[in-house]
């Protein structure tokens, strides 16, 4: 536990060391927040409600999704950092250390997520709530469920990215598959448009995937338009994916290390 705590703090500090990057990233997400918000406002000139989202829900979606992009890791180096270490052979050093690589990666990622919640998500969301008319839940219980859902989204996000990284144990070049995974995730996580806007069958199918558990799920919980009308179902699904992906990651990592050949040096 002590080690976990130290690693998590390390994950936090790794990002805290570059405040300039934080402000710059925040600025970029805010710009995208404005752009997507105006696009959706134009969409709602022709519609009252789309897939259970009214215009205030949709604008809330914009600012929460932009706020959570970094928190759950929709973009960024965490999709291929470990893959790169496998390719260069540096992973051998990780394996020699007396710690569980997956668990160490997870707690560092939690530290990172904590940093991004404080310095990216909260300012981003605050600004959106200030500048646009968005849905603000009045019951404290909904905020608690939302916080829980965000935490599960971080875990699911870690699970997805860890597995994608592991592809490098079998593929000589991981960059193509990683790009592919990021593209699929952008679409199915609800990062580009709310999944509620998708045609019915695709909406349901997408919301069942682990990708939706990364981003769309907490937003659905926030605006109160969850899959099947049940917040409990959404949280259960997120918990399932968080655990299943962690388990799968463990098995695949073990298989990968058995196969790993590091070029001597």
């Amino acid at each position: 536990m002590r080690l976990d705590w130290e690693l998590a703090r390390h994950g936090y500090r790794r990002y805290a060391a570059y405040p300039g990057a934080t402000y710059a990233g925040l600025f970029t997400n805010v710009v995208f927040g404005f752009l997507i918000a105006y696009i959706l406002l134009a969409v709602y000139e022709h519609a009252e409600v789309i897939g259970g989202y009214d215009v205030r829900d949709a604008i809330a979606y914009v600012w929460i999704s932009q706020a959570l992009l970094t928190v759950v890791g929709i973009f960024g180096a965490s999709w291929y950092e470990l893959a790169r270490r496998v390719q260069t052979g540096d992973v051998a050093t990780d394996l020699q250390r007396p710690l569980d690589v997956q668990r160490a990666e997870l707690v560092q990622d939690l530290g990172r997520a904590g940093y991004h919640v404080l310095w990216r998500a909260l300012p981003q969301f605050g600004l959106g709530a200030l500048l646009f008319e968005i849905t603000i839940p009045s019951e404290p219980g909904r905020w608690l469920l939302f916080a829980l859902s965000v935490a599960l989204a971080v875990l699911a996000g870690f699970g997805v990215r860890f597995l994608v990284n592991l592809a490098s144990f079998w593929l000589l070049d991981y960059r193509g598959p990683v790009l592919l995974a990021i593209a699929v995730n952008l679409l199915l996580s609800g990062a580009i448009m709310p999944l509620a806007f998708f045609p019915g069958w695709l909406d349901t199918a997408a919301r069942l995937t682990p990708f939706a558990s990364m981003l769309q799920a907490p937003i659905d919980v926030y605006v109160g338009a969850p899959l099947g009308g049940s917040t409990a179902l959404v949280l259960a699904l997120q918990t399932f994916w968080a655990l299943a992906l962690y388990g799968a990651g463990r098995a695949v990592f073990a298989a990968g290390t058995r196969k790993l050949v590091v070029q001597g040096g």
Partner: protein
Amino acid sequence: MADARVLAGIYARLVGARIRSQLEYRVSVALQLVGSGLLTAVDFAAIAVIFANVPSLGDWSLGEVALLYALATTSFALTDIAIGHLDLFPQMIREGTFDQILVRPLPSLLQVVASDFALRRFGKVLQGLAVLAFALATVEIDWTLGRVLAIPLAIVSGAVIYGAVWVALATVAFWIVDAMELVNAFTYGGSFLSQYPIGIFARWLRGLVVFVVPLAFVAYFPGLYVLGKEDELGLPEALRYASPVVAVAATLVAGAVWRNAVRHYRSAGG
């Protein structure tokens, strides 16, 4: 200083070498080509999802927005191939490798730009052209010779405008090394914005992209000309033809900004 033709020759040779080295890894390039194409296709999926719910955006139809998207995406993809590695420029400053560039007898910008040529991003161009084909098949255009020529001219002008914006903003790295993502707001954000009709954005944003960072000239104004559409912004008709001129002007400004920034370079001691 060597004249432009000699520099173009040097650029072509450097880029040729980059391309040949990448072609040594054909499978890798092919996979990344598919990956990068799909990654941009996601942006078009957003537009498709919007039009699955509403018949128009402002008073623009799916085909019309698709044309804007195609012009913007294809232009941006070309820029990204040629100078997308400017994203890594702050590393050169941080590690002091920019010193090596300054001691060579070639313009510094030429060397930075020629340091990579991302063939792997060509999938984005193909994706843009595929949407262009869809747009042209979907909307009714009153074809004239001018309109036929306007499309390739808009793509080239757009690529140059994006390039100028990218270069000018990359100079931020001379002062702030860890803030490259700031530039993303204008490059990736700019390319995203140009995919949509400018009229749907707030007044301050419209003013910004017409008069300050000239992104409206990438797709919006040429798009109005090709489609023969009325300008919701109510600006002079001459702007529809102005993209090539704006591209040249933007390049001159970017060049001046770069030269001024290089004078402020302080080495990390690499």
